[in-house]
């Protein structure tokens, strides 16, 4: 039986990883709400964020802030590229849902293989943003990175909320999500909005990857599990608002890391996926029915 300390510790860890899931989940929601597409390649943005930052930080010796920013911009660029080259032509031709999902999966495989060819298949990591730590409260250790994740996560959700509510582009994106045809009739450039949603969502994913890498590692294959966990978080959060998605992520992270204490770390994705299957079993329309039903 795990001790209380172990459980609390796992709770703390769970919040950290959960916030990251939440950020990925928001990425899913942004694209989904703008276009009705679930981008199964969401996880590769996370992987690329970590990989790029590692390359610049460790190999090129650039400062962290620069590495992180350049990575985010670069990954956002890749997101736009995926949208331009693949998703948009399919979307405009009204390709079936299944075909688009398949295409995003193929994109994931493609990017993973390119990463192996160019950067190798070895796992890699870099140090916490703030050296030192962890912060000790009794027997509970809280790594400084967790505060970075918390802070950046909160900041991003705040910025996103402001963006959606206060800016023209944000409001246009929301209009798209409510009714695409009507938005197009009102002169919202729907194509540009789709592109924006991919850029945003890729940037979010990259940020998540950059934040989480110091606490574990990144490698070409981490995309799929991160992507799936993000999707599960999005389902729990109901595909609606950014804070709900973040909350969904935290919920998932906590349950998952609790389970790790019981069954061992190797099975953490198995646990998450089993949670997904169970959730879907009891809530076949998703937890927050209405909106998620379309997913």
């Amino acid at each position, binding site marked *: 039986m795990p001790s209380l300390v172990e459980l609390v510790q796992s709770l703390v860890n769970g919040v950290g990883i959960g916030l990251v899931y939440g950020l990925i989940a928001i990425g899913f929601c942004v694209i989904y709400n703008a276009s009705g597409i679930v981008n199964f390649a969401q996880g590769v943005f996370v992987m690329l964020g970590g990989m790029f930052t590692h390359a610049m930080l460790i190999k090129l010796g650039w400062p962290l802030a620069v590495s992180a920013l350049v990575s985010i911009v670069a990954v956002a660029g890749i997101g736009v590229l995926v949208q331009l080259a*693949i998703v948009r032509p399919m979307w405009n031709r009204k390709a079936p849902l*299944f075909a688009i999902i398949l295409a995003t999966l193929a994109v994931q*495989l493609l990017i993973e293989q390119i990463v192996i060819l160019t950067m190798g298949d070895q796992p890699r990591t870099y140090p916490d943003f703030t050296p030192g730590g962890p912060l000790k409260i009794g027997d509970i250790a809280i790594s400084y990175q967790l505060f970075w994740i918390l802070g950046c996560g909160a900041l991003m959700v705040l910025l996103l909320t402001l963006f959606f509510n206060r800016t023209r582009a944000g409001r246009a994106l929301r209009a798209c999500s409510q009714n695409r045809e009507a938005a197009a009739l009102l002169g919202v450039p729907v194509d540009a909005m789709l592109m924006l949603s991919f850029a945003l969502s890729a940037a979010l994913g990259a940020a998540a990857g950059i934040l989480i890498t110091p606490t574990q590692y990144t490698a070409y294959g981490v995309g799929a599990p991160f992507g799936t966990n993000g999707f599960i978080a999005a389902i729990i959060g109901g595909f609606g608002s950014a804070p709900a998605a973040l909350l969904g992520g935290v919920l998932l992270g906590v349950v998952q890391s609790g389970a790790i204490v019981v069954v061992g770390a190797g099975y953490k994705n198995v646990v998450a996926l089993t949670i997904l299957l169970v959730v879907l079993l009891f809530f076949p329309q998703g937890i927050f029915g209405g909106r998620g039903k379309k*997913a």
Partner: protein
Amino acid sequence: MTSHASTSTSPVRRGAPGWLGRTGYVGLGGAVLIALLFGFVFVKGGYLLTVMQLAMIYGVFCVGLNFFMGYTGQASFGQNAFAAIGGYGSAILCVEYGLPPVLALLVAMAIAGVAAVVVGWPTLRLRGHYLAMATFALGLITYDVSVQWESLTKGYMGYAGIPPLGIGPFEVEDERAKLVCLMVILVFGLWVSGRLRNSRFGRALRAISTSEPGAAALGIRIPYYKLAAFVIAALYASVAGSLFAHVVGFISPEVFGLQMVVVTFTMLYVGGIGTVLGPAIGAIVASLLPEIVRSTGRFQDIAYALLLLGLLVYAPKGLSALSGLGRPRAAEPKPGS
């Protein structure tokens, strides 16, 4: 074909319906080409024999997947899970428990079938993205388990020393004999597929693929038929996994990973989904394509991904054969409207 004996009552029934889809003679020409190719490979031998063997194995997988995706029009991104059950089942049963390969294959198949019922029953009530993600999750779970459960699967390192197929003292060791053996199995799989497609059972599946409301209104038990198609696909996948284990002699989690999903979809799509022979033709053509550009390993996966993306983006009509999924997004007709 005996399966069309009953069609003789109708004077103008087109050829053998569905065996080749709309491609008709083009497909027939392709089949002839493949036969020639077969002869060539057989005579030439060497590495191409291995390529062809894998094509047959993937062919078995795709013919099964076609039941669920082609005939029934449902998407599963996790059928590789059942191939893994077949592969590891065969490996473990043979190596650890000394079962003869054929028996191991059958036992693994039974396990995969039971797993498909247990997993499919709740999962298949889902639709759209949820179904896609749930099935995708199945594949990921299986992958993680095969990596983590080292005492059973030997983890990343994979499982080596799996005996070749054979009955009693006769083992299929010669590469050419292996190919013939695999071909016979694939042809049997195709025969089953053709017979089922043009029967009461197959018609019900195909009805579901284009109109679930229409099928339900005629008394078709949709959950039952979807599950049946899913289980059949799982059985084929399990056989493919077992065959891979016995023919190659080695399996690892990577064999049944995401690549398998993308590769088999490419094959299904290239060959013509929803037709009887399409999946097999697709498996052969798509296996040979990367060989023609003489690329291997990583480049091969990249070639597949690019090929599939090209097809999806520039030939979206090719997917319209998947009629049930062929509805544009957001245009899910309301039941009964």
